Structures are given as C-alpha cells and as structure tokens.
C-alpha cells in the first residue's frame, strides 16, 4: 500500500498505458535477472562437473603411470638378474614388446601433461624430465641386453626414485588443486543458489507490490471518475472531476466527462430559460386576456345598462325626459366607440404579429395632423383635469411623405396614455422638423415609471405593474402598437421617465421613406 502511495506521488500524471508499460517493463527486467542468475548457476555447476572429471582422469593417469613404472622396473630387475645367471638373449618379439611398453609409458606421461595448467606446470616439467631420463635409461638397457660382452646396467636407482618422487609430488599437487577448485566452485554454486532464491522471492514481492500499486492507482483514478459520474447522474452538474490528477486516457476521459457536464449544464440552463420565457409569455397572455375581458365589459356594462334602462323608461311614457334621453344615448354611443377602439387595438396588434399590417404612404401636413389629434382628444384631457401645452414649430414644418393613419394613431396613443396616467397635471406636445425627420415629443407630469418598468414598457401584453390595467385602464397594447408603427415607418421611439415626475416619449419619423 505504501509503495502504491509512493508510485502515485512520484508519477501522479502517468497515463494508464504508461502505467501498464512501466509495470510490464519492470516484470520483464525481474524475469531477465532471474534467468541470468539461473544461467550463471547452471554454468558454475557445469564447470564444477568438468573440473571433477578432469581431476579424476588426471588421478587415474597418475596412478596408471606409477603402476607402469613399478611394473617396468620389476621387469627390468628380473631381466637383469636373468642375464647375469643364464645369459640368455631376448627374442626380438620380447624387445618389441618392451619398446612398446616404454612408448606407452611415454604416451601416458605426455597425456598427463594435458591436465593441470599453470599451477602444475613446474611439477609436471620436473616429472617429465626425471621420467624421460628413466625411460631413456631403460631403452639403453634393452638395446645393450643382447649385445655380448657387455653387462647391461640397470637404471640408476636414483632416477627411478626421483621419478617416483616427482610423480607423488604431482599427485599431491593435483589433489590439492582439485580440492581448491571444488571448494571455490561449491562456494559459487551456493552463492548462485542463494541469489536465485533471494531473486525469486524478491521478484514475487516486487511483482506483488507493482500489481497492488497498479490496481490502487488505477482504482483511485476510476473511483474519482465513478464518483464524478455519480454526482453528474444525481444532477449536480457544477461538480468537476479533478482532471489534473491523471494524464493520458483517464485524464482525457475526466476532461470529456467535465465537458459533457458543462454542455449539459448549459443546455439545461437554456431549457430552463426557454421554459421560464414561455411561462412568462403564457402568464402575460393570460393577464392580457383578463385585461381584455375587463376592458370589454366596462363599456358593454354602460351600453347594455343604459339600453335596458331606456327600454324600461320608454315603456313608461310619463317618465320620459327628452333631454335626459338624448344624453343617455350619447353615453351609449361613446361607450360603443370606446369598445370599437379597443377591438381595433387588438386587431392591429394581431395583424402586426402575423405580418399582415400594411403601410400606405401619402403626402400630408404633420402640423395639421397634430392639431387635429389634440383637438379630438380634448375630452380625455379634461377628464383628469389636465392642461395642454402645444408647442409646434410651424415655420419649419413642411409636408411629409409617410403613413398618415399610423402617425395619427401613434400620437393619439401617446396623448391618451399621458392623459390616463396624469392627474391635475400638464401634457406638453412638441414637434419640430429637420431635413431628415419629424420629431414629436409627448411629455406629462404623471406617475412616471421606474427604469425596470421603462425597459418593458413597449412589450405587448405588458403594463408597468400587473394591476396597472386595473387602476388606469387599458390593455397594455397602446405602446406596443406605437413602437411597431414607428419601426414600420422607419422611425424610432424612446422614453425618459422618473417615478412620480412624469414621462416623456420622443418619436422620430423620417420625412421621406428610406
């Protein structure tokens, strides 16, 4: 476990593939070390076996040589005794046999020279010299044996003893060296055996440690991933997997998950926004319908109520008052006209929204139009006890080419709004014209609007407050229509207002269509 921590800390950014390569490489190196130690051990065993065989062969050769020398001396001594007593010569075959025996001894001596090496070199040379001398003396013995008149001298006893002595020395030395080599080789074998065992055990330990480290680090990475995915799954899209902790594939995977989460988050936010927009649009339409219903009912109440009342009064002729009757009819007609205006507003907006509103250009005098509108709306002005200031720069006012009806409705709506939201105040209508455009400003000293209300004032189905329509009447359509008409005529509209200090609407309409 500790190894795993160290590995994780040392290589915190190693990819999964990197980890696998590192892991496989380490196992391969351990395997190679084990194989090498094992080969070394088997080589040492082989050497030991060779050295043993060599020692055995050399010992055999030495023993044989010693035996040969003893036999030959025995033979030579017997022959010498026979020669003195019987004086019989040796047959040729016997001489050949004796020469062959001596050749065999010489051959054995030569073979013995192949074993040993540098350590035995000096011993062998002394043996070789003394033995060669002895063999030569025995050769001479056989050569002289059949010659008459001569007594073949037996070899010099010193030579034989010398050779025997050298042979023993060599034998002893051989034994000593064999023991030395065997000891050295035994040590090597013990060492290689120990190394093999230690190497094998440590290989198992290291492999286990590596496997654990591998499992732990990979498992830690995958656990982080799993935890992250679970958090995502449970809806926590702000969670981020720590992608710095892993490199390579797992890091990429973490990054991909994080990107997926970000995209999901964005998509959900967009969806929520869209749903909220749709909800508020729906709420606005419901509110609009409620307002339309209310607004339709108010004039209808008067129309139906007065009509029914007049019907009742007509059935009772004594009660009929012509003046009163006339006034009541006028009320019915006014209410009917209000109803018509309202219905026209709704139809206008519907036309605009479906793209069916037409613009028809004509040349007309805007100054005349403005005066007419203000005259026509004077009853509205007096209803809330407001006064009108008309400020038209007639000197610079020329005829313009635009949609007269739409401009009339724009000014009418702005003017009636100003009257509706102002009590005991002043309405100012100003107009001037330059080369490009006619600018009309309708200012009041009424309730005004907050900046938030101003931001939404031109939206259809919206009034400054949910109950504005209830307090002041209107469907919230007037300004939406005004803005749409301004756009259609190539112009602009802007509003300036402070709560309780009034509002000022400024319209710019091009003198000629662009």
């Amino acid at each position, binding site marked *: 476990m500790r190894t795993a921590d160290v590995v994780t800390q040392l290589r915190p950014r190693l990819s999964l593939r990197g980890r696998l390569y590192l892991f496989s490489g380490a196992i391969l190196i351990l395997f190679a070390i084990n194989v090498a130690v094992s080969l070394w051990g088997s080589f040492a065993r082989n050497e030991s076996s060779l050295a043993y065989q060599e020692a055995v062969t050399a010992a055999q050769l030495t023993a044989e040589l010693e035996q040969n020398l003893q036999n030959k001396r025995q033979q030579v001594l017997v022959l010498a005794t026979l020669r003195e007593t019987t004086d019989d010569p040796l047959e040729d075959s016997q001489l050949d046999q004796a020469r062959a025996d001596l050749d065999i001894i010489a051959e054995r001596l030569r073979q013995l020279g192949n074993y040993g090496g540098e350590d035995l070199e000096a011993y062998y040379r002394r043996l070789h010299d003394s033995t060669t001398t002895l063999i030569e003396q025995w050769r001479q013995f056989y050569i002289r044996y059949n010659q008459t008149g001569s007594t073949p001298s037996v070899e010099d006893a010193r030579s034989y003893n010398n050779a025997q002595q050298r042979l023993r020395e060599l034998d002893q030395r051989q034994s000593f060296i064999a023991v030395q080599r065997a000891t050295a080789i035994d040590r090597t074998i013990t060492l290689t055996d120990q190394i093999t065992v230690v190497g094998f055990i440590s290989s198992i330990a290291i492999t286990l440690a590596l496997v654990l480290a591998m499992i732990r680090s990979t498992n830690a990475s995958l656990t982080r991933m799993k935890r992250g995915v679970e958090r995502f799954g449970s809806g926590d899209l702000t969670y981020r997997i720590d992608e710095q902790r892993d490199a390579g594939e797992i890091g990429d995977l973490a990054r991909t998950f994080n990107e997926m989460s970000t995209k999901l988050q964005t998509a959900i936010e967009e969806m929520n926004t869209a749903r909220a927009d749709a909800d508020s649009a729906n709420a606005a339409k419901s509110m609009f319908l409620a307002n339309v219903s209310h607004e339709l009912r108010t004039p209808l109440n008067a129309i*139906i109520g007065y009509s*029914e009342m007049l019907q009742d009064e007509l059935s009772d002729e004594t009660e009929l008052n012509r003046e009163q009757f006339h006034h009541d009819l006028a009320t019915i007609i006014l209410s009917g006209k209000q109803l018509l205006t309202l219905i026209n507003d709704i139809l206008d907006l519907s036309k605009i929204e479906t793209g069916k509103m037409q613009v028809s250009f004509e040349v007309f005098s805007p100054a005349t139009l403005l005066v007419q509108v203000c005259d026509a709306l004077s009853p509205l002005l007096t209803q809330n006890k407001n006064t009108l200031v008309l400020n038209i720069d007639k000197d610079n006012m020329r005829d313009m080419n635009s949609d007269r009806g739409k401009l009339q409705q724009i000014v009418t709506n702005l003017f009636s709004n100003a009257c509706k939201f102002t009590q005991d105040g002043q309405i100012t209508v100003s107009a001037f014209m330059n080369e490009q455009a006619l600018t009309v400003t309708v200012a009041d000293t009424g309730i005004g609007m907050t900046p938030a209300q101003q931001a939404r004032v031109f939206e259809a189905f919206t009034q400054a407050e949910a109950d504005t329509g209830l307090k002041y009447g209107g469907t919230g359509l007037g300004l939406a229509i005004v803005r749409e008409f301004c756009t259609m005529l190539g112009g602009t509209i802007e509003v300036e207002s402070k709560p309780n200090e009034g509002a000022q609407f400024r319209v710019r309409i091009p003198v000629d269509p662009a």
Partner: protein
Amino acid sequence: MMETTGQILLVEDNEVNRNMLTRRLERAGHTVITAPDGETALSVMREKHPAVVLMDMNLPVKDGWTACQEAKVDEAIRDIPIIALTAHAMEEDKARALAAGCTDFATKPVDFPALLTVIAAALNAHS
C-alpha cells in the same frame, strides 16, 4: 317583516356606470346612496349603516378588496352584506372577492334582474 327596499350603498368610480345603476335601482324601488372610492365607502358604511353594499373592486384611493377586508374586521359594520360588482369575470376573481369577505359576486355587464335577486337574497339573509 322583511324589508325589501332597504338603503343600498353603491360604490363605483365610473360616473357613467354609477349614474346608470343608481337610476335603475331607484326605479326598482331601492334607496341608493353612492361612494366613488373604497375609503369613502367605509366611512359611509359606518355613518349610514346601509342594508347592503354593491362594491366595484377596482377603485381609486382604496380598492374594493381592501375595503371589504377592513369592513369585515370592524365590529360596527361587519354584518353588512357586501356584493362584489366587477368586470373581472374570471373564476379566480370570484374566489378572490369571496376571500376578501364579500357575500356574493356579480359581473359587469350587469344582468339586472339577477342583481335584484342577489340583493334581495342578501337583504333576507341579513334580516
């Protein structure tokens, strides 16, 4: 005995509608007093103690719902039945009016015979 021609307080800010309804109720035999807003309506209720109140809901100064709630916690006038009379004709508008303490609910345009029945029922229940 039941008093079917008791004094009615009509609370309505729109002059045209106020006049029309006053004339029709008087023709039907009721005594009508009027108020143009919720605040005035409450003081008239305390002063004159009408048999029934016809209350428009969208009123200046103090709206009908507030006036209704205040009337219901005032020991002196809490027993006076209040009939909501409004151009808000949705189901939730009716619920809102009843929640504010109105005894009944009638929509504009006024179905006059039905309104007379509602007034009669309110007067009966009251007496």
